[in-house]
């Protein structure tokens, strides 16, 4: 008995050592794999950044993966201010602002309307609320292409064809199914007792929404904003169909820039323009993503 218990610890240590070693191997393997995948994913971005910082000669002569011999911001300045899209040579900045003017209101309105729909569908149930919700859900599955013709007719009737406001409306309408779905599911789990307490406290329909529901919707607002922002900012089809020319969003402009066939292809300028077009969505992920995770954590610890 005593002999046994004496050599037990060393055996334990042995098996512990083994376990530790195999855990390290596993970890090394996993990290290697992750790094390889990350490199593969980041390679195009790397090429874009590197190319955008090279002069045109260097782009033409050098290796695609090579770092620039001489860093120049010329392509960025050109892409922003003087690059030619078709005949006019004012760069992409006007279209960038178009996209901002389209995306920010569309995201704000779409999110707010979705929240409001979710509020009514869960806290002020009416007869047939499930049918209404089902129909909104259905809207999520309608492909872009089907909407195009009827939508352009509607925009024409409303006099919003080829305007940024028209695009805002299109994106709000198209996104409403998703934003409603997000908020309805979130508010479904939102305690009814809070609403009842507010009713007893004398709060009215809209006050309850503004003062009780919305301030407690942080995580789902972030999710919806990320979703809507990336979808609307990156949209090409609606932009190309409903807002050509002056009021086109940046995605369409980028396409025009790349397809402008005067002289040589300025890859460095194209890359700079493409990165510029992608920056806002990256920014939204970096800024809001952190709140998103924080929101999730807060939700899970709360009693």
């Amino acid at each position, binding site marked *: 008995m005593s002999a046994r218990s004496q050599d037990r610890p060393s055996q334990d240590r042995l098996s512990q050592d083994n376990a530790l070693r195999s855990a390290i191997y596993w970890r090394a393997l996993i990290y290697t794999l992750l790094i390889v995948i990350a490199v593969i994913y980041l390679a195009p971005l790397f090429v874009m950044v590197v190319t955008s910082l090279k002069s045109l000669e260097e782009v033409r002569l050098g290796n695609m993966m090579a770092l620039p011999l001489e860093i120049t911001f010329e392509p960025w300045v050109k892409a922003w201010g003087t690059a030619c899209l078709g005949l006019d040579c004012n760069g992409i900045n006007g279209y960038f602002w178009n996209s901002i003017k389209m995306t920010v209101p569309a995201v704000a309105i779409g999110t707010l309307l979705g929240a409001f729909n979710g509020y009514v569908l869960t806290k002020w149930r009416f007869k047939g609320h499930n049918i209404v919700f089902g129909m909104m859900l259905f809207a999520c599955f309608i492909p872009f292409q089907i909407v195009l013709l009827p939508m352009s007719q509607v925009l024409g009737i409303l006099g919003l064809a080829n305007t940024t406001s028209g695009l805002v409306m299109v994106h709000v309408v198209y996104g409403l199914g998703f934003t409603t779905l997000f908020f309805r599911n979130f508010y479904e789990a939102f305690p009814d007792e809070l609403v009842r307490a*507010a009713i*007893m406290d004398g709060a009215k329909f809209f006050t309850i929404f503004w003062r009780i529901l919305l301030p407690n919707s942080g995580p789902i607002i972030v999710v919806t904003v990320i979703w809507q922002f990336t979808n609307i900012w990156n949209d090409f089809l609606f932009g190309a169909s409903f807002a050509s020319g002056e009021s086109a969003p940046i995605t369409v402009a980028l396409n025009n820039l790349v397809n402008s066939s005067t002289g040589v292809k300025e890859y460095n300028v194209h890359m700079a323009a493409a990165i510029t077009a992608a920056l806002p969505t990256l920014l939204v992920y970096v800024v809001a993503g952190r709140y998103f995770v924080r929101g999730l954590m807060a939700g899970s610890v709360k009693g």
Partner: protein
Amino acid sequence: MGFLNIDNVIKHYHDVEVLKRINIEISQGDFLVLVGPSGCGKSTLLNMIAGLDEITDGDIWINGKQMKGVHPSKRDIAMVFQSYALYPNMTVAQNISFGLEMRKVSKPERETAVSRVSKMLQIEPLLNRKPSQLSGGQRQRVAMGRALVRDPQVFLFDEPLSNLDAKLRVDMRTEIKLLHQRLDATIVYVTHDQIEAMTLATKIAVMNGGVVQQFGTPEEIYDNPVNTFVAGFMGSPSMNLVPAKVIKVEGRLSYQIETKNAGEPLLLPVGRDEMAISKYLDQEITVGLRPETITDPESANHTEGTVHEANLLVDLTEPTGADMYVVTLLGGQEVVGRMRNRAKAAAGENARFAFDVSRNVAFDKASGERIQ
């Protein structure tokens, strides 16, 4: 007419009748406890009083005013919810004053009211915290503060203590009782804890299956339960309900109860309601014996001459510190008696039991209704 009058209230959810003709009437300053098992309709009734749910039929009157069609916020009622329902995005102070703000009370007045209530409930140091930074007991207090600050005619509590641990529950119970006495408030309080009901109430309504089984003072409910449901629900340990036969022994109306030593039944004189019970002569009934009426001879109250002693086999003893619960088999059922802690009783042996027969009650075997 009482201060709060629940008049023939019926509630249907679709086809299901959840409340079946509820009639309850209490006076100003009463503490009404609605008690009953889960799903019996307590919360539903409370929501009807609050106006949060529509009444199918019948009406509710508060201080002589008909409540049909009156919005919850216009009923001069405050409610404390089971989950406390504190607004997570607001501080404690904002939570308490939200109702006043909605009623357009000016800011200085709101601040005075908040400080008055927070002093009363001793939550002053917490005023700037968010609900998520509070313990369960503190949240409970804040929820009460939110109700108190409005100084309503009627307070509604829906199981306010059920989320607290046992010790805190007892503390808060005492506090609510003190608060009631101090404020002379009219309170309707929902619980399924019968001890809470007994300790807090001036009036109890025992509910089951959407029906008020009995409405009365805690003493009435405890001493004179109208049926076996009320008898079994109120009291802890609950009343022993034992099959017995009504017989006459030496001219005296008695209960004959089977014991474990089969040949020798226990004979207990009928101590009350003899007129009614005599109609059941030679019939099977159910007799209800409170555990505290079954004791050791030394701790029995012999002054009334209603104590009857017998030797019975002890099945099990459960010392609790203060008392000892003693289990014996009567009428094929485990019967619990409450003896002194050091009473002479041991499992597997015979012990001397004393029955105070003046407090026994009899029920019809089939219907479970009280015979009296």
